[in-house]
């Protein structure tokens, strides 16, 4: 297929919508990527179990929503307080799980070769996936009742107004249709029995007017550029931004944050300078896992994907790629990487290659690493002998 055909087949009026979808998807990736990037920055460890912490967060929100009376089939009305309770409990449980994983699986490995901790991380990830499958409900995959979300509507925006000429034609067609319908109704009311002869012509006329009008209306719908975003997804984006700002503040302007930066700069020197390294590592895991928990709750509630214990696998891998893409260890980099990843994915779908949406993450990653091995916003360190 040549390029001209390819471009001609594209529908540019849906592109802005897809880009917005990509940013919303990327916000979730960014939240998970922040956890990866902090942990890697401090411990130089790829925390493969991070995606599974995300999965656990989704299950916690599911159980909390059940406990609040939003089981499957429930038709209760919800308030935003329920959402906040779900968010907080998911963050809390994920934070605790993250800290426990660090304490029991990663801390004993810290003095060992890095490949050993990586294998442990893979082991923890597999254990949570398959061990979770024993205990957690996963067949049929449950999903959070959408009644728990009180903010149902959709945010609609018109970027480019519909074509003026078409609008005028459509209005005229509508008037013509109404008139034809009125005539038909009047005729059939006048003479209900003899429908064949006298009303047939009028009915055909009415149907033709209807077809013209529908055609024009469809063309009109496609001519403008509009965005439709469910309010829930707007909340995801808003919460993500707030959490990121809080994290940035924490890392840049508090004493804990300074200690975190010191530890990630040089682990041993930081401990010599009086930083309680163990406490900082625990804190890092707490924060990272809480962000994953927040992402999981929002993803499970507002997007409503059914939950299995492998729920965290794909988002986890993609978020890790996002963290590397942005420059691992770098907070704005993780956010940028996550957003790029989401946009790239939806763009691939828009281009019509939706089956490659999982491959694009890695293709981008390889290209970026080949040309900028430190990631987009990372520093290219020269190794000294």
């Amino acid at each position: 297929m040549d390029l001209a055909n390819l471009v001609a087949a594209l529908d540019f009026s849906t592109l802005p919508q897809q880009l917005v979808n990509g940013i919303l998807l990327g916000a979730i990736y960014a939240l998970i990527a922040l956890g990866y990037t902090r942990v890697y920055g401090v411990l130089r460890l790829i925390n493969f179990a991070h995606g599974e912490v995300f999965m656990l967060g989704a299950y916690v929100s599911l159980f909390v929503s059940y406990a609040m009376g939003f089981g499957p089939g429930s038709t209760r009305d919800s308030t935003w307080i329920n959402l906040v309770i779900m968010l907080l409990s998911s963050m809390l449980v994920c934070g605790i799980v993250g800290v426990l994983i660090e304490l029991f699986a990663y801390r004993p490995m810290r003095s060992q070769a890095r490949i050993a901790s990586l294998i442990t991380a893979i082991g923890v990830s597999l254990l949570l996936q398959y061990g979770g499958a024993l205990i957690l409900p996963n067949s049929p995959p449950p999903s959070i009742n959408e009644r728990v979300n009180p903010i149902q509507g959709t945010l609609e925006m018109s970027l480019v107004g519909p074509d003026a000429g078409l609008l005028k034609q459509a209005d005229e067609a509508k008037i013509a249709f109404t008139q034809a319908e009125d005539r038909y109704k009047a005729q059939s009311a006048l003479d209900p029995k003899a429908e064949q002869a006298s009303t047939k012509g009028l009915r055909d006329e009415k149907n033709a007017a209807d077809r013209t009008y529908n055609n024009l209306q469809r063309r009109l719908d496609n001519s403008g550029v509009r965005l439709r975003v469910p309010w829930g997804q707007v909340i995801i984006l808003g919460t993500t931004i707030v959490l990121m700002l809080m994290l940035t503040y924490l890392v840049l302007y508090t004493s804990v944050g300074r200690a975190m930066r010191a530890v990630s700069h040089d682990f041993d020197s930081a401990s010599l300078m009086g930083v309680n390294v163990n406490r900082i590592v625990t804190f890092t895991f707490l924060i990272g896992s809480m962000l994953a928990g927040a992402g999981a709750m929002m993803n499970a509630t507002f997007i409503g994907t059914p939950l299995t214990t492998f729920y965290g696998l794909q988002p986890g891998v993609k978020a890790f790629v996002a963290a590397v893409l942005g420059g691992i260890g770098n907070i704005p980099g993780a956010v940028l990487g996550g957003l790029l990843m989401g946009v790239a994915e939806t763009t691939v779908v828009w281009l019509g290659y939706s089956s490659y949406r999982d491959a694009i993450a890695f293709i981008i990653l390889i290209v970026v690493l080949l040309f900028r091995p430190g990631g987009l916003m990372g520093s290219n360190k020269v190794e000294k002998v």
Partner: protein
Amino acid sequence: MRYWLIRLGSIALAIGGCLLLDMLVTGQVPGVNKVDDFGQRLVVLAGLYVTLAVSLNLINGITGQFSIGHAAFYQVGAYTTGFLAVTYFDRSGLPGPVWVIGMMLISAVAASIAGLVVGLPSLRLRGDYLAIVTLGFGEIIRILVQNSDKIGGSYGMTVRPKFQYIWLVWLLAITCIAVCRNLLKTAHGLPFLAVREDEIASSAMGVNVTRVKVTAFVLGSAFAGAAGALLAHFEAFISPSMFTMDVSFIILTMVVLGGTGSITGSAIAAVLLFYLPEKLRDMAPVSGAGLVAGVIGVLAAVAGIKWLISNYHGSRLNRGIFVVCSIVAGVVIQIVFSMVLRNVPALAATQFEAAKLRMVIFAATLIILMLVRPQGVFAHHEFSWSWVQRLLGRRAPTKEVAA
């Protein structure tokens, strides 16, 4: 003359041994019962995993290039063979073994080209970044195959002639082990070890780091490709779901548990780690009480061994006795707890299928082994009788060649 006699003798011994194994398994030796189809399949897959683990060990353990996408090369080999067999086998008119050996060579070449493609970025990347690129490469290959309708897409493809040469599988495994061993014993292998220990220092000493890394990738992936060729003909069906990230992780686990850099370690770990989940398949369902008690017992044993390693510095023999004691204590604790917990109705009522427990136990074994012995069972050493003697506290009679 003697040199060549030894060489030819060992080659003949290897081929003879593999043929004997084949005959034993398929029941051609009088007096030995035929192993059922499932058992035959296990023998073949174990051989393939030995090849995969040892070839990954060449990249990961010996050259120190952190690759976690080995299933990709396996897949390239399998699909090359699958495609060629379906298209050309009928027309070629070749006898089975010749065809399969030819396919192994062609698949090895195809996989080594893929290895070259992955090996080239490894010149710029190291450590975790390389790991991620190899992981990503594996996923890209899998998704590409999934989307190619010509080779079956995500439904998989049927490979028509079904050849089940058990001897060829194990011959490949032995060849792979022999190549790695000979590499390490000769001057050609030293640069590989040098690159693992310190890249910069070795390049200062005149080692061509580029060539070493690319050679390791090409050689390692070629063996994986040949293993893929055998898999395609043995199973007569291949699908992308047979080559997921999990497979790469399992191969990597075999290498690391055996001890990175230890050829025998990788081979033994491959056989054990392959059989462990398969054995767990036929286990009876476990009650909740048994499961909880098992977890507690294992944790107790691990805690005992962990404490021992950090606090007790006696002779090897005493330490060994203590390790055995903590394992026994763990078993006792497990039995006691299972008797106590049997009275808890909620736990006794729930049953867990053994099939579902397989991967859980696999993962738990992985974590526990890493916690107890992070350098792998064999560490950098090779299995040898002098090593066993040294482990028991006696002096080694001969000089040890460290890998």
